[in-house]
């Protein structure tokens, strides 16, 4: 489902006015990135499910007080998610443990394919575990949650350039961990820019 910013704002206003259907559309649009963001930081899928649900209920409670003020609704929602995860980790003394994430096997894959996929997935998981927390946050928000650099920066409370730098270093680390060679930049855009590294 694709919604532009104007459509999201319109849905937010309708939800603020008490339209459950509008809030349902917002849930449909945001639940997957929120779940992914949460699932990266908690051990069990059931916890991710509970926290995602909690984030949306909290959003519903806080919706009358929400004002755009330059912060997109998505960024506001991820802040709620980030705070919820921090609270959860603090109270449950749980740390993000990617190595113990529960597998959700691909039902369509055959045994061989599944084995290869599992190896690749395990490799990615190990590579992500090697990142710093900020780098992992940047990757999570940018790639798993699909936020723009600006939105990710708002959620993380950092400058956009800083987030770009974190992302760049995270990708470099992943590449090293996964044994992927640096690609040739053949599209004429020149060498890879190192944002936030100056």
């Amino acid at each position, binding site marked *: 489902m694709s919604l532009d910013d104007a459509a999201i704002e319109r849905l937010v206003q309708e939800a603020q006015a008490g339209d459950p259907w509008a809030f349902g559309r917002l849930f449909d649009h945001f639940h997957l990135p929120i779940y992914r963001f949460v699932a990266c930081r908690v051990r069990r899928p059931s916890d991710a499910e509970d926290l995602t649900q909690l984030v949306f209920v909290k959003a519903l409670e806080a919706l009358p007080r929400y004002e755009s003020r330059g912060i997109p609704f998505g960024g506001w929602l991820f802040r709620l998610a980030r705070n919820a995860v921090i609270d959860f980790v603090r109270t449950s003394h749980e740390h993000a443990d990617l190595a113990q994430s529960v597998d959700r096997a691909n039902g369509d894959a055959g045994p061989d394919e599944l084995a290869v996929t599992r190896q690749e997935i395990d490799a990615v998981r190990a590579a992500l575990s090697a990142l710093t927390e900020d780098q992992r946050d940047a990757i999570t928000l940018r790639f798993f949650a699909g936020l723009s650099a600006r939105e990710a920066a708002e959620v993380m409370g950092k400058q956009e350039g800083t987030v770009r730098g974190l992302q760049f270093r995270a990708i470099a680390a992943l590449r090293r961990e996964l044994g*992927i060679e640096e690609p040739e930049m053949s599209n004429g855009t020149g060498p890879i820019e190192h944002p936030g590294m100056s």
Partner: protein
Amino acid sequence: MDDQRFDTNDPIDPEIEWRLEAYADLRLSPSVAATTRMRAAVMAAAHRRAALMEADAASGTAGALTVATDTTVIGLAARQARSTRHPWRRPIAAVIAASLTLGVLAGTVVGARPGGPFYAVRLWAEMTNLPKDVLARAQAEVARLDARLQEASQASRDGDGPATEASLEAYSAILEEASIGTGGDPAATAAIENGLARHVEVLTGLAGQVPAAAREAIQHALSSSTKVLDGLGQPGSSGGDDQGGSGANGQPGGLGDPGVPGPDKTPKPKPSGNDKSPQPAKTTGPEPGGPRATPDHPVPSRRP
């Protein structure tokens, strides 16, 4: 969001992107069942909020809206009930609360055991609810006397001396009120007499069984019963107190027994309001509302 994901300043090789996507799809995506559960819970909360907003708008009350985080039916019902506010809601709630309090208090009083802290209140409540009609009142008094005897018997069987004593004292006091309350009405007098004859038998049988603490009280009750029976048997008598305004032997109680409590010793609290129980005039003359024995209204047999 996805449109803004990779801009020209964010080059990324397809291999990394593919692996991250695969990882997210396999490990970081909720199952269909999980998505359904989450959506159902969130939509339930959204609908509750909408219902609250509608209710608040309807009642004209402004205020912060809160959304239940619990998804229990009880929580939903409570919030829906809270949302249906009306201007008369508070007075109604106050009346209901007062009624409940009174109900609980009444239940406590009605269930008060003899000798208990609420026993006197119970007796007083019984007395204030007596009917105004003389005959009906006499029958009600007999019923009260029956009840006291039953309480005394039960307490005696339980070996509860104080309760037996309290029941029998109450019996004596009620008996005195009852004899006065007949007002000389033949039918009422007959009703009292019939009841008392039965009670004397019961009391006689009970006399040898009651705990030591209640022996004096049962003797007193027996004495009162026989004397009231005798008093009712006197021509023109309207009860024990009519045996003489100052008592048969000059005692204020009027029943010849120094230990017999007078009407003012009835175990009843002093109500703040008016005591609705009729206080018959202590006269020996004819009662205005109660004809004496006349040729047209002969007094029934005084002793069974």
